[in-house]
């Protein structure tokens, strides 16, 4: 009988008076992919921090690969036990090459301590090839797309425990939301690799929001709710609904398609002619008032760049746009005057300002209305704006004057969407509105956008969450290679159609796998 890769026994952890974890026991066996599901605030991240030695449990024990974790512990000693983490922000150095990022700390040296670059390059090339990655080891990480970076991060986590783990190839890899930025195609490739490595005897703990992932890719699944483990089962006995019920604690239906809306008689609010820039190549389309247009495709197909270009966050190379019949040269300052609002998918850099307060972030675009005599900002006015946004969009917090960083990811996203909806724009442009947020927040966001459209607003959003695209959109433009490959509307808007048109001619091979 081999030792468990991870054995959590009866762990309890409280912060102040709040119990974050109550008597949690969890085992990850070598060779299995074990998914850990849970809402934001379910204790998922606390558990990971306890395993990482960042928090000391109040009671209970943790063993990894048979070694008891003692507190305080260091990252280094965990490494010696054959544990590797990949956190959401991956932690790659952008200015260094893939090779350097992967091999730093374990470069082989020869005589006079020189680095054997050719050997290293071969090792890394082989590693990358085994993951189906067609990139040169010398590519700087800064040139990689977000999802390629995730892949490299996972590759690195694996090599840390598997390649030279030497001690009988046992190890534990903990992946915290590895797919947050990944489209379907990348997910499949990534999980293919994860399974392959698990098959070599490494235990994988996969922390995720996405209920489909354990169903498709994991062997076992555990669910945390309110700090307690409510299930730890073989995946085979579960389906989407049963997992959702465990996570949320009540039965939820998958967000359902609203009844088809007839928008043919509405006027066109925005029309785009031969827009080019970044990877986009002569894209033309128009959108009506009250319409929800989904933009999708495989990673890098160009759909994610369209809202960015339309808003003028970067200057398009060519083409013309008109809004409400008037020509519009994309530029963020002008865009606002034309009634456009943009919520970036890059939430860390271009979302809210984390160090500023929640209130300041929420009122930013609507500050005009709080300007009083002598241009003095009336704080009472500001407070009432904040209050109405927080209430309307059901954002939980203890004080609006705390930093924005104290909000959970889902609440941040709701606050950012809410603040723009609050200044009633004509057109809402969004990138990945539901990526990386928990299922509750994601349903709230979908409801907010629908409500906005029902009131006559136009929504244009890019997303690779195909199910969300299908359930939210009146019409979907599917991109391939910077061009619109398909336009789906009405009854054609289904997840299956979106996926198959994303893959284009490969559709039969792609959907079977």
């Amino acid at each position: 009988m081999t030792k468990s890769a991870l054995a959590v026994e009866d762990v309890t952890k409280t912060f102040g008076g709040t119990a974050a974890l109550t008597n949690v026991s969890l085992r990850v066996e070598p060779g299995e992919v074990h998914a850990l599901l849970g809402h934001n605030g379910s204790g998922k991240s606390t558990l990971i921090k306890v395993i990482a030695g960042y928090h000391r449990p109040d009671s209970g024990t943790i063993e990894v690969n048979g070694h008891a974790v003692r507190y305080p512990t260091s990252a280094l000693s965990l490494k010696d036990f054959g544990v590797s983490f990949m956190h959401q922000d991956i932690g790659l150095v952008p200015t260094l090459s893939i090779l350097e990022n992967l091999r730093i700390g374990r470069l082989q040296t020869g005589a006079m301590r020189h680095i054997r670059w050719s050997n290293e390059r071969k090792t890394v090339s082989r590693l990358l090839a085994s993951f189906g990655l067609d990139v040169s080891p010398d590519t700087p990480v800064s040139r990689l797309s977000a999802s390629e970076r995730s892949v490299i991060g996972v590759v690195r986590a694996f090599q840390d425990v598997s390649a030279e783990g030497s001690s009988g190839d046992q190890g534990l890899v903990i992946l915290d939301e590895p797919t947050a930025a990944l489209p379907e195609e990348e997910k499949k490739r990534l999980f293919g690799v994860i399974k392959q490595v698990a098959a070599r005897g490494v235990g994988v703990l996969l922390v995720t929001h996405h209920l489909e992932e354990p169903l498709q890719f994991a062997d076992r699944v555990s669910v945390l709710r309110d700090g307690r483990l409510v299930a730890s089962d073989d995946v085979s006995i579960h389906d989407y609904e049963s997992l959702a019920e465990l996570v949320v604690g009540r039965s939820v239906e998958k967000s359902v398609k609203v009844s088809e809306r007839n928008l043919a008689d509405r006027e066109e609010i925005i029309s785009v002619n031969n827009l080019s820039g970044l990877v986009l190549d002569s894209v033309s389309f128009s959108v009506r008032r009250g319409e929800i247009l989904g933009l999708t495709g495989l990673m890098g197909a160009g759909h994610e760049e369209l809202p960015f270009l339309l808003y003028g966050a970067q200057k398009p190379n060519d083409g013309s746009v008109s809004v409400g019949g008037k020509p519009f040269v994309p530029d963020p300052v002008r865009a606002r005057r034309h009634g456009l609002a943009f919520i970036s998918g890059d939430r860390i850099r271009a979302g809210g300002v984390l160090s500023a307060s929640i209130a300041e972030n929420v009122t930013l675009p609507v500050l005009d209305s709080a300007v009083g005599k002598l241009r003095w900002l009336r704080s009472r006015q500001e407070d009432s704006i904040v209050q109405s946004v927080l209430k309307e969009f059901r954002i939980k917090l203890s004080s609006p004057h705390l930093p924005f960083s104290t909000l959970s990811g889902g609440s941040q996203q709701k606050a950012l969407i809410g603040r723009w909806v609050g200044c009633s724009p004509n057109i809402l442009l969004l990138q990945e509105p539901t990526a990386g947020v928990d299922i509750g927040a994601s349903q709230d966001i979908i409801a907010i956008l629908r409500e906005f459209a029902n009131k006559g607003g136009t929504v244009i959003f890019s997303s690779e969450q195909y199910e969300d695209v299908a359930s939210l959109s009146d019409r979907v433009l599917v991109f391939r290679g910077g061009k619109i490959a398909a336009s789906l509307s009405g009854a054609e808007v289904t997840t299956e159609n979106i996926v198959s048109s994303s893959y284009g001619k490969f559709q039969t091979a792609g959907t079977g796998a």
Partner: protein
Amino acid sequence: MISLNKDSKKDRGKPKPNSAVSLGGGVGEEFHGTVPSSRSMAMSSPKEFFRHYTVVFALIITIIVFGILRPKTFLALSDIKTILTGQAALFALALTLTVALGAGEIDLSVGGVLGFSSVLIAYLSSVKGMSVEFSLLISFVVILAVAAVNSYLIVKVQVNGLITTLAMGTILDGLSQAVSNSSTIGNIPSRILKIMQGRFLGIGLPFWYAVMVGIVIWYVLHHMQSGRFLYFTGEGREAARLAGIRVDRIRTTSLFVSAIGAWFAGFILVGQTGAAQAGTGDPYLLPAYAATFLGAATIKPGRFNPLGTFVAVLLLAVGTTGLQLFGLTDWVTNVFDGAILIVAIGLATLVGR
């Protein structure tokens, strides 16, 4: 190894404001139905209160300590008036620098600008015999040109601002030597002396000018939309740009403000000392930074704020004066200012946690 500390990715080397609830997972989140409208929420606990007023307490403690050790000399009212008057140039410089730092711009040329403007004013009015108005106007325009070059390079061409302004400061130091012929220019017209050597409530007028500048800055930064936009530009430039804020304009303006502040500080020095020479600005650079960074750790922790800067300049001034009363000479000032800058940055980091 990848850090699991969620806070680490948010920290981009800048001081963070109060993160009393740091469990990003939402364990500490509680919905109250209605939002508490009081701004004091963030300062409800005594610990929070102390965090906001660390530097104020330090100032009070410093005064008490020196007051006990040297009761006669230190607590004499005239001494406090002398301190305030003597630090007027630093007040003006540090307060305007707060604006540039708030917008995320580090302007190291302010020392050079200060020195050059004082030499230029003295040279034009004394050596060249121009009228006071004309001397001030010309020096002002020259400094505007300097600010224009700084901001063109930093904002438009996107050159590293730290290096650009460091180089600009050195250029201006050289020009000051050229203009003054490396000697002291005296014989300053009495009208300039009058503007700067008058007193109100026993304190030199330059201090009051600086206070007025401070009030304007406080009003704009804390109570106007432009101030909010400025802080957002400094703390999240891309996010601010995508929210439709004209970040380039704000950055440019902030660099003009710091240059004009330095020009004014130079003007103050000429008037107070009745003379000008090259290199007078350099000793002001470090204290100005020490004060702004120390100020960012208090009143509104995590943000460069004028009130904090004001208190911090006072602490610097009281501290050095006190030490000098013990017979310690000039070198003390440098050691003290340098130490304060390090403490300030350390404090800002700790307070931000």
